[in-house]
């Protein structure tokens, strides 16, 4: 174990969130719960990225009082990257939910095992 685990506790939490979301993806049978797990995974990644740019004792990157010194503001790059990521994640969620609605209309089930059984049956295997 490295020495910086106590200082990097936010990133450790982000990794825990990522793993919980991943476990949801692997172990849940319900499609809606899988999508929620995917969203939690997203949040974990964003938390990890945004925490990279945080610098102790500095303020948000909005120029106030005309001061333009690097020593005053945090790193603006991770914030910008995550900002676009959050909006993309909602469109990905909407796409997955619409697929779920179509699957439910066709197979009348949200359980992935049942759906795959029904698909196999349709193919005549």
């Amino acid at each position: 174990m490295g020495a910086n685990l106590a200082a990097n506790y936010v990133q450790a939490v982000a990794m825990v969130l990522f793993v919980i979301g991943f476990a949801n993806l692997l172990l849940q049978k319900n499609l809606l719960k899988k999508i929620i797990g995917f969203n939690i995974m997203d949040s974990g990644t964003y938390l990890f990225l945004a925490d990279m740019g945080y610098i102790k004792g500095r303020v948000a990157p909005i120029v106030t009082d005309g001061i333009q010194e690097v020593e005053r503001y945090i790193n603006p790059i991770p914030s910008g990257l995550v900002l676009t990521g959050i909006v993309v994640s909602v469109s990905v969620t909407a796409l997955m939910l619409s697929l779920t609605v179509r699957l439910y209309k066709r197979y009348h089930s949200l359980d992935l095992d049942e759906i795959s059984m029904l698909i196999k049956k349709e193919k005549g295997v």
Partner: protein
Amino acid sequence: MSRRKTDEEYRQTGAFRFFRWLSGSKDAYIDTVEMKPQTEAVETKEEEERREAEHKHAVEKAYDSNNRAIIVFNKIYRLVAAIFTVFLLVSLIYAVSYLPKIGDADNATSNEVARRYIENGVQETGAVNIVSGMILTYRAFDTFGETNVLFIATCCVMLMLMLDEKILEKMDGRDDRRFEPKSDPILKTMASFLCPVIFIFAIYILFNGHLSPGGGFSGGAVLGAGMIIYVNAFGFKNTQRFFNETIYKIAKISALCMYGLIGSYFYITGANHIANHIPLGKVGELISGGIILPINIVVGIEVACTMYAFYALFRRGGL
């Protein structure tokens, strides 16, 4: 010498087809692209019974307590998944413990790029909010691609969930709103207070993106949320008076094209060291910041349209 085109000739032009397509009277792709019209799924009684039986059979087969192979497979799958998850957790936290200390000023992440954005950002972009200035000028094409992602996602959701106009008319009042009260007094009263406030707040966020936290993405999302509340309280008929499918098409496509044009102009002039004729204005005023204000407005329209379209498509199957 100019002469007036006859009706027959006008019908041959591209402009006629474009406006016909825009007003929705005829799809430009009918008779040219092979398409399958979407029909409402109608089940006969026998089909339904067969489906129910199949469903029951599939459930029994999937959770068969006598089929040893499935039980063993499920157990092994769960075990392997759990072991893999724990391994992932341990390795990720191990990696985090070796990362440089968060909060230090001399980390590798705060390098000369961030220094450049902070020290010269205000002079070069005219935006007080450095994040907005960064994503809309230095990284404008990145954001353009991301706006395209929104557009494509809406198109995909439309492919999945959009119903034919005739079916919508026939289904009027018998979609999933039939199980809820049509004009809830609590919701209506609260919405008539809340909607104006939300819209004004959204427009404030949109127009002050270069001066304060916010910008196109957050302002557009708030605007979309306000429209969702309005639809929920007053129904689709009232909303269609100011926002229907034609307006949606025009707003969305023209917003995307505007962004493309502004972005290309900025990119070409910047990459070739040609003089850029967009004035930056006085830093700190509302009308300032060069291309940031128009792009913020355009992105806001795009995001609001996307959010409302998602809701309407899920709810009703059409805009």
